[in-house]
């Protein structure tokens, strides 16, 4: 059972890598050169899929947090930890990619684009929750508190986005590499699925690690039905 589960994670990861290689090759070498921005625009083939998947990971984290609070069960807590870590990693990658795109295009490393800025803020918010987990020894409290914090952080995302957008709109009207014309869709989609599978594999594996660590922490074996300390 255990080994099957691990195999699943590796299979997902392998599919993901394969798709990514295909999509990136297509995007980087075969797809036509974009007339306005030039080759720099090719970063879009990674940037946009990473953006979609980062948001997906953090939304999944939100769902895990809700499940953890409302239904209980240690597996949701493990998945929450995994989803947050992977989500934060992808979001950091997103910010780096955004900077790499911004420098040759606008001449500055950071252009306060609302989406990227919101992403940066979300990185600090969720990194903070991951830090919180390290400082709480009691597993039940750790699970409850990180779920609460994740819910509050996620609810905040739209508010943060709107406030940054209004704040930024008064200063500049630069855009980020978002708009893609139809000709470029396929490599994008392939890469998106590539990262999706890779991400799913990583979350699966990471959740497994978290669950194993929890088993070590709780003296009696994990209850089957769920975390009975939760309503």
């Amino acid at each position: 059972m255990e080994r099957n589960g691990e195999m699943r994670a590796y299979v997902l990861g392998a599919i993901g890598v394969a798709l990514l290689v295909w999509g990136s090759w297509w995007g980087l070498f075969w797809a036509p050169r974009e007339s306005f921005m030039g080759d720099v625009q090719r970063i879009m083939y990674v940037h946009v899929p990473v953006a979609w998947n980062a948001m997906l990971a953090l939304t999944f984290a939100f769902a895990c947090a809700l499940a953890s609070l409302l239904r209980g069960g240690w597996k949701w807590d493990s998945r929450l930890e995994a989803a947050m870590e992977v989500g934060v990693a992808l979001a950091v990658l997103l910010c780096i990619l955004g900077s790499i795109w911004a420098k040759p295009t606008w001449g500055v490393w950071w252009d306060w684009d609302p989406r990227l800025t919101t992403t940066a803020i979300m990185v600090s918010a969720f990194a903070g929750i991951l830090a919180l987990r390290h400082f709480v020894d009691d597993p039940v409290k750790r699970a409850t508190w990180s779920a609460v914090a994740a819910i509050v952080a996620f609810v905040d995302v739209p508010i943060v986005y709107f406030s940054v957008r209004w704040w930024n709109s008064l200063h500049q009207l630069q855009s980020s590499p978002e708009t893609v014309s139809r000709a470029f869709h396929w490599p994008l989609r392939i890469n998106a699925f590539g990262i999706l599978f890779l991400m799913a594999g990583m979350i699966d594996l990471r959740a497994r690690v978290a669950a194993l660590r929890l088993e070590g922490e709780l003296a009696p074996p994990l209850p089957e039905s769920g975390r009975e300390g939760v309503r």
Partner: protein
Amino acid sequence: MQLVAAVHKDLLLQWRGRAQAIAIFVFGATSLLLFSFAIGPNAEALRQHAAGFIWLALLLSSTLTLAESFQSEMEEHALEGLLLLPADARALYYGKALANWAQLTLLGVALVPLTVVLYDAPLPRAGGLLGIIMLGAAGLSGPGTLYAAMTSQTRAQQTLLPLLLFPLVVPVLLASVKATSLLILGDPMGQLRSWTILLVCFDAIHWSVCGLLFDRVVED
């Protein structure tokens, strides 16, 4: 009514701890002074940034206020004692959040004269400024009380509270700074209303969500 009892308790605790509140004000005032050094003695630049700095000072001081508000609850586990009476966890949250809100508003108001003096900031609409301070303080106090309750039960409260709170209250910071800036420097395009609405929405959402989640944070 339990909420009244809770507010009474928290205001009484704050009154008893007023020496600390004064110390926090001194901290805020010193911060304002230090921030001005970052700009230099350029009156025009200082005036432009006055709004930002008063809110930064308030934000930093708020971590001290919020952390301290749960100090007395955790020393002898008084909060647990109240929960066992039984007291409604939600009432305890709102009592504490309201008391913190009052203290942060007072702090903000106290920092205004200093800002006017150091940053040469005119005050044409003092009433509006009071409103923004109240809304911003509520935005800090709502989620802040929830996180203070959480982090006061950990080993690393001083680090964790700002770490968790600051990213969350970015909208409050942005909106309050913009609104204050518009009040001080003028609002030719009538944007004040949108920022005020943003603050109101933030406060409404977080005061309800955090109130709902509070009992999960303090109950074992």
